[in-house]
């Protein structure tokens, strides 16, 4: 559960509301689109993509195909990694050619993950377009990348830690920000 000194940005109920809002925006913008698909970036992006899929199915009756993308092999910092990131399974069970793909991730920060994800996606085909949906945009981009759908904007400095927790992998839904003064030196920067 929430630790001391973390500022809670949203709880479970609020997260549901944000995801419902993002789902509605996706459907609104892609009205009439025949080949719309969701692709979640491992790990939490996949959980959020599944939620969007469920909300969209309940509200519009449309069953969107869902893919899972592991970006490890496309990272630009592999040569600097001190130990091995685990490669997990990518599953894109539909044809990407001509599709409109909504990439889903929990936090948008430097933009490097999204860059890697786009490279990964394009290896599977040529989508008509790629859009980006994130639960949290924390700013501080290092690449010219912007999200099409944002649940909540949380301006944070690189030293702050923004943490998204989802029930599927963490046991509860929550977004927190730990200000720089409280982030311990040894901990990794949160994404």
């Amino acid at each position, binding site marked *: 559960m929430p630790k001391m000194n973390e500022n809670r940005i949203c709880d479970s109920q609020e997260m549901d509301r944000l995801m419902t809002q993002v789902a509605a925006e996706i459907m609104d913008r892609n009205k009439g689109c025949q080949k719309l698909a969701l692709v979640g970036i491992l790990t939490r992006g996949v959980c959020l993509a599944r939620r969007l899929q469920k909300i969209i199915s309940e509200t519009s009756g449309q069953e969107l195909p869902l893919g899972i993308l592991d970006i490890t092999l496309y990272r630009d910092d592999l040569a600097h990694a001190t130990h091995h990131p685990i*490669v*997990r*399974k990518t599953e894109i069970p539909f044809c990407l050619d001509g599709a409109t793909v909504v990439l889903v991730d929990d936090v948008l920060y430097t933009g490097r993950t999204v860059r890697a994800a786009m490279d990964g996606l394009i290896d599977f085909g040529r989508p008509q377009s790629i859009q980006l949906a994130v639960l949290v945009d924390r700013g501080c981009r290092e690449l010219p990348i912007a999200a099409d759908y944002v649940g909540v904007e949380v301006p944070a400095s690189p030293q702050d830690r923004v943490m998204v927790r989802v029930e599927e992998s963490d046991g509860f839904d929550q977004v927190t920000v730990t200000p720089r003064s409280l982030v311990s030196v040894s901990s990794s920067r949160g994404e």
Partner: protein
Amino acid sequence: MGFNRKDLLGTRDLSVVEIRSLLESAESFKEIAERPLKKVPALRGKTVVNLFFEPSTRTRTSFEIAAKRLSADAVNMSASTSSVVKGESLIDTVENIQAMAPDIVVIRHGYVGAAHLVAGRIGASVVNAGDGANEHPTQALLDLLTIAEHKKLEPGLTVAIIGDIAHSRVARSNIWALITLGITVRVCAPPTMLPRGLENIAGIQVCRRPEEALAGADVVMMLRIQLERQDRLLFPSIRDYARIFGLNRRRLDLACPDAIVMHPGPMNRGVEITSEVADGERAVILNQVSNGVALRMAVLFMLGGQGT
């Protein structure tokens, strides 16, 4: 922690965690072979040298494809076309290769310990692709990956290994890895092809007859009879060997009804395995080959993806 070594020289000293993390990683690499574009940028700018002092098509090609699918530059060197024929020593050869700054050297050599010797001399990561009759770790790991597609890799599983155990690095690497995972290993071979002392190793059952080894086995691993060694007369005749130790339909019926049949290749059809079994529905021999690429991608990635 997963696998965090400089080199992969054998399975004998791998831990359960290391084996499982290599297999888990390989599992994720399988999918790349099914993509329209079979290439990922993970090892872009890295150089992999395949240094083969012994003939090989399958293993060398497998390593080469694995390296190329990871976007590494793969360079192949075989002893027959290299300075080795001019009398250069192994150490001189690899020190020259090291001077060209490769990131990974994959080596196969006829002498036991060759890969270990090289690994101690150069900064590049070394993968043992077979050293004499000692070890061939990537073959054993791809065998485990293949078994895991059909069976649970855990204690309770029985694997029968039949054939020339004494001269087989494939058997050795498999035995070490299987024992580490707590899996029961039965070995069966003519007495001339059985290393002494095997029965003293915990987890190994030495069987005199193949029928004994096959009874209720979940996995049947047949080894190649190295016909090129037949001048040493390890058994009376190839026909006798096929009759007594060869895997045919009737013998396979002694194993579990859903047993799988494996062979590291190249096969001597009609000697250690009949065509009926090799091409039968229980054979997973070609799956082994496909899995070999995924497993070697995982190994190269885990050795070469690392910063130095």
